[in-house]
């Protein structure tokens, strides 16, 4: 039987409304053949984790351009873990200074993509690193 399609959630945590990147990626993931759920702006980490579980996604992609990523990205991962969904992978993107990468990796964020990353390179990373959950 063919593997089922990847289910990917694109989410905007916090109060940031800069959603150009998130929406471009949502569309790109759809074109790449993933099943896409886009949360819209202004989601709390709790809402994102609950929705990710509810929607049974394989990957959560977070976008933040407000500078609050150091709090928000780990908070989403923590919420997933607390809800027993530590197998849902979390990646992030936006305006993320290089010096924050390690902190985010240490807090469970698997990859960070910043301006300049091509759409195809992000899709390729996902295809290589994310498998549909059992």
């Amino acid at each position: 039987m063919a593997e089922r399609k990847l289910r990917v959630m694109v989410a905007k945590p916090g109060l940031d409304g800069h959603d150009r990147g998130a929406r471009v990626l949502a569309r790109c993931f759809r074109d790449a053949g993933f099943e896409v759920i886009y949360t819209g702006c202004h989601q709390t980490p709790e809402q994102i984790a609950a929705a990710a579980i509810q929607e049974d996604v394989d990957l959560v992609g977070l976008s933040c351009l407000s500078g609050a990523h150091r709090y928000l990205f780990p908070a989403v991962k923590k919420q997933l873990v607390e809800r027993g969904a530590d197998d849902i992978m979390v990646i992030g993107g936006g305006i993320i200074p290089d010096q924050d990468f390690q902190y985010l990796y240490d807090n469970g964020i698997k990859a960070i993509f910043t301006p300049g990353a091509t759409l195809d390179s992000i899709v390729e990373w996902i295809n290589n690193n994310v498998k549909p959950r059992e």
Partner: protein
Amino acid sequence: MYFAAEVLEKSSVLRQKWEDEVRRVIAKNPDQKPDHLWSTVSDLKIKRLYGPEDIKDMDFERDIGYPGQFPFLRGNQVTGYRGKYWTFRMFSGMGDAKTTNARWHLLLKEGQTGLSTAFDFPTLMGYDTDSPKARGECGKCGVAIDTLEDFLTLVDGIPLDRVTTSMTINPPATALWAMYCAAADLKGIPLTKIGGTIQNDMLKEFIAQKTLMCPPEPSVKLISDTVEFGTKYVPKWNTISISGYHIREAGSTAVQELAFTLRDGMEYVEDVIRRKGLDVDSFAPRLSFFFNSHIDFFEEIAKMRAARRIWAKAMRDRYKAKDPRSWWMRFHTQTAGCSLTAQQPYNNVIRTATEALAAVLGGTQSLHTNSLDEVLCLPSDHAVQIALRTQQIIAEETGVANTIDPLAGSYFVEALTNEMEEKAWEYIHKIDEMGGMIAAIEKGFPQLEIADAAYKFQRQIDAGEKIMIGVNKYVSEVQEPIPLVEIDDRVEIEQIERLNAVRRKRDNKAVKRCLEDLKNACKKGENVMPYCIEAVKNLASVQEICDVYREVYGEYRDPGLY
């Protein structure tokens, strides 16, 4: 007819000769790229050459004219920049009110001529710093303001009767404007003397920027309240800054920015007339606009020139305004944040200078130039100084301000201006047919048009069809680090302490009463402004006021269209 028949005849002959020559040359030496890639950043096709035939249908009096005369293509001010340069207005706000106040004084000392406030996300969204939704955001993207006490610190030492201040604030605009009014009052300055701008443009929030609170209909009602209050009591205030900037940053084309912004403006005009019964000439002169100046030089100039002409026509012919000042489109411009790159950030100085020059040639009244580091963080003192100096060099060294609208009469610029106008009217009429901008937003029309354009552009960048130096061409292996401004997490802790101190010392019964009065005013459809001023004077917080709106009008959630 713009040209005499013999000029066009002559041109046609010479043009034929030139075209033959072009064909001969490109048969041997082909162009560097195919025809369709010679286009603007918005993907508008540009011809190799423009000539008299491209503008032959123009009518001098109807379409061009003189500065200060209908249709204002050449500008509003009869003296151009000789009487006064555009206002050098740098958007700034960071950390707490004290830090931002220090930046403001620095900018004024360096020759800035107007202030512009960037608020942090909790303030922009109408939450106090200690709201669970605000965690991690305090002071990060702008200044944190919870109560009038913060606001008084923000404007400390600023002569409110002499310096005009712009505030980029949307859902909580009534609360922050009320604070400005209250601050003036406490300093003994009458409301008739203060000048400035509140952005207060919710339609573009639903379309692009997504600073959301209540649904579109009550959001527009609150805006009409401010227009009415300003018209009656604060006559020098621009109560809306109808903004294309964010529409463009969200990925729109130049034509979409132009069309959606002007159609938003028309929606506000119609609402104030219908809801408040005001005469159009009583408030229209105080409507102001805000455009993006992107990297495609001539497209931007054409856009700004077209904007003035469209607005003049709309105000005179559609809304029957009689006062020439109602026909004026006055606008602020900001260079395009989305054109800047994190890679090789010093290149951003050149981008910003080019965009600033386009804004000046387009006839802007006010300008913010982005700092080279704004793509990475809040601007440093040094970066912001370079950005301000960019404007000063354009104004005082380059000579471009010597003469008004110097590109008028250019075959290309006039033809492009006409094309922008035609394409904008097509969108405007389409939105009219949908029942206006609120109806179009509810259908997701402008949002999805912009999403299409943004996606297409990203694909073109990835394919190398559009170029961003340092991103998809001339990429450097080594990234030279630049100093980054960081906002310490202590700012949040201290801001919450200040807020709690205010809550302890204020008369909480009086606050409760003010908020009750505000709620009743909302329910009865009264103008909220007097109630907001009373509430902030009693130290009600931004969130407390916005919670009243959320309770009465309901909350709007981003539908997440893509």
